[in-house]
């Protein structure tokens, strides 16, 4: 499967602050790729680099086969973009906005536009400045979907929306998922877990992992080892996260679970193990385990925390 988005050692610095460090990842064509990470992890910076809103300090990004720095003018008629922070043409009505956008896109589908207006229940004659936050996002989404873009880039599209609006937007997205690659960023894991096919995890400007969601779910297990008798602490293996031992019970997150092979590995460390159970984890649990492990390791590496995203924006 070819990549709709490809990043190679992409870095972005704002002064002395490194917002992104050597980011390498691929967003496969046809995927719904969720870029997750805490606030200030660098998600918005990464998306702005992809959209050529910012320019990278090092490395390169390719979007739909084109270097991101070449992305301008007509090249943007294949990419739909919606962001929580985007300024909208407040003085226009929804109808005027759609009318205005239409000629920019040769592949604009008026039937789809009408369908989206109906699906999102958009008030066509209301000015955008008078729309609620949810309605604005839906109007923006209609404008980004109506030309059937091969790539849809969404920066925190569901942030601050009520569940009803969120579901409507997700439904609208999933309707189009067959014909487009979707890259979206979010810090709310529960909202993207249900429909994403791929996930990339950014922490302090670095990619901790980027892979298919089922593979990730398969790889992570919450392991509980029950020992015959309480023993002294053993040194955990590198792939064990959040290791803790209490009397005869040992718990940890295994980040590279390979079934019986991993069970054997556990029993090698704990020869007196009476029972080894491995439970599947939610994306949220995986995210938390990795984030905590990363943060506990950071002081050992002598790293300083990165600048928050809000500051990045103000500097930009």
């Amino acid at each position, binding site marked *: 499967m070819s990549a709709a988005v490809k990043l190679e050692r992409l870095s972005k610095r704002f002064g002395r602050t490194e917002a992104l460090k050597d980011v390498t990842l691929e967003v496969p064509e046809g995927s719904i790729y969720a870029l997750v990470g805490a606030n200030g992890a660098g998600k918005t910076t990464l998306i*702005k680099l992809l959209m050529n*809103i910012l320019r990278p300090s090092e490395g390169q990004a390719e979007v739909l086969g084109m270097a991101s720095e070449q992305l301008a*003018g007509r090249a*943007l008629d294949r*990419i739909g973009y919606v962001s929580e922070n985007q*300024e*909208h043409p407040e003085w226009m009505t929804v109808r005027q906005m759609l009318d205005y956008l239409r000629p*920019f896109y040769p592949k604009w589908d008026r039937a789809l536009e009408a369908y989206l207006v109906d699906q999102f229940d958009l008030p066509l004659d209301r000015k955008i400045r008078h729309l609620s936050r949810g309605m604005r996002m839906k109007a923006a989404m209609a404008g980004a979907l109506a030309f059937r873009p091969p790539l849809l880039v969404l920066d925190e599209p569901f942030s601050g929306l009520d569940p009803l609006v969120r579901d409507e937007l997700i439904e609208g997205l999933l309707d189009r998922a067959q014909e487009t690659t979707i890259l979206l960023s979010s810090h709310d894991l529960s909202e993207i877990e249900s429909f994403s096919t791929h996930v990339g995890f950014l922490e302090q400007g670095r990619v901790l992992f980027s892979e298919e969601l089922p593979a990730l779910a398969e790889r992570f297990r919450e392991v509980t080892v029950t020992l015959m008798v309480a023993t002294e602490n053993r040194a955990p293996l590198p792939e064990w996260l959040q290791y803790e031992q209490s009397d005869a019970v040992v718990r940890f997150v295994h980040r590279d679970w390979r079934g019986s092979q991993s069970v054997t590995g556990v029993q090698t460390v704990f020869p007196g193990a009476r029972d080894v159970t491995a439970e599947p984890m939610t994306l949220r649990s995986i995210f938390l385990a990795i984030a905590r492990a990363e943060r506990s390791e950071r002081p050992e590496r002598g790293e300083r925390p990165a600048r928050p995203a809000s500051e990045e*924006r103000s500097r930009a």
Partner: protein
Amino acid sequence: MNQVGHIFTKDVRRHWPEIAATLGLTGLFGWTMSHQTASSLNAGGPEYLGGVLALAMLLALLLPVSWWVTITRLVQGESLVGDTQWWITKPYEWGRLLAAKILFLATFVLAPLFLAQLWLLWAAGFNPLGHWGGLTLDVALTAAVIVVPLMALSTVTKSLSRVTVTILGVLLAMIAGAALIGWLHIGRMTTSAADEVVYPAMLLLALAAIVLQYARRQVWASRGMLAAAVVLMGVGAACSTNAGLIAMTYPQNGATAAAAVAYDAQLPAWTNPTAMHEVRLMLPLHAAGLTAGSGVILDGVRATVTTADGRRWESAWQPANGTRIVGAEGRGYVPVQMKAGFYEAARQGPVTIRLRLAAVDIRAGNTKRLTMGAGDFVVPGVGICTPQNDNGGRGYSTMRCWSAVRPPQLTQVTGQWSQMPCGQNVAGAPEQTAVGDAWFGQLHPAVTSGLNPVVKMPVNLSNPLNPPLLAVGNVGAAANASARRYLCPGAPLSFTPYREVAKTQYETTIADFQLPEVKQEKVQPFNSPGLHVETRTE
């Protein structure tokens, strides 16, 4: 519809209040200003004229303000600052976006101004179609001086308030800079030679900032360019008194000089005090070798004074106030300003004064002779002139001339005065012996970037006086030599244009010169440009 038209249409829909305001103000400006032109051409007018004229002046201020708001809001409709704008992720082509903005400004700012100016020319009695080239240049200059800088500022700022603050900041910096440079340059000759490089460079920087912003949105680089333009202006102003630049502008090339300028011992030198404990010494000069129809304009002077005991003082280049020495009999006074302390010390004995004069050799073109009309009359090469009624209604004391788009070539106008009010002497016959003259126009007339393309010039003919009496500061004698005179219909007038032949330097040395006593009265040399002394005897 292509993208340019599409964006233009959107902007028209969005900015209709600004369009209405700009068009309304432009139309009103044209209407009121045409009244002003008509009223100045022909004295009198309707009772409401005073209000109309005041409105015209107010509109001359409001119109640029409306442009400022329109340009800023138009450009910032697709803001080029920041990274959250809606439009930057849409398939806008920057060249077409810029073209749409330019089309808007051409349609709703420059074209209405052009039409208003056509109307003003027509109202002033000119054939507007005969001046469309000049008008186009006038509008282009307005674009360069007002529209481009405002547009450039709008591209690097986020809101109208920030543009306003920036403009105020730049204006304050310019005022402070001008005050500082003015203070440093007090009493020094300035040359505009650097402006020929500085102003185009500033325009290019502003244009480059606009293009860079639209093409790449490099805000800080563009801001740097605009800051460089402001700095460049300051550097240009600071260099305006540079001796090297002056020497380059006025080359020392005696072979091509039209005359030999020298001290005129027939006329007395005189002084008057100035502020800052300085003395202005007025030295009479004549130009040997000048033929009829040729002359010299003195732009600057640099003096070296050496006393008998070997003390030496050298001035910087000082302004010579455009003193004109014209024709074989031409004379003029050149001012030399020096510290009062040195002057008084140097007066104790004879001194040697060496003068270097930055001058322009001029030559007369064909003289046009015509008679004064009772109303408007056309002067070829100049424009339209009209006599100005004096307040007593007894005749005309002077006249005014109007040019289209640019001032006329530097012109000497002469006219014969009448001693009696018009109509009271025999058939208004002019007094044959009293000829007044005046100068107006420019050696290098350039299209101005003003709002009104009608260039107004008062022509105040000199009331002939006895030059030596006035020159020595004998004001009482001057008053007796002058009488109230009238410029009546039928009076012969002549208009002689002068053109530059070359810029050059003259040198002359005045040996064994006794500096005159410092007089306290302030008097003017007899050939001050456009001097009109009117003595009321009735």
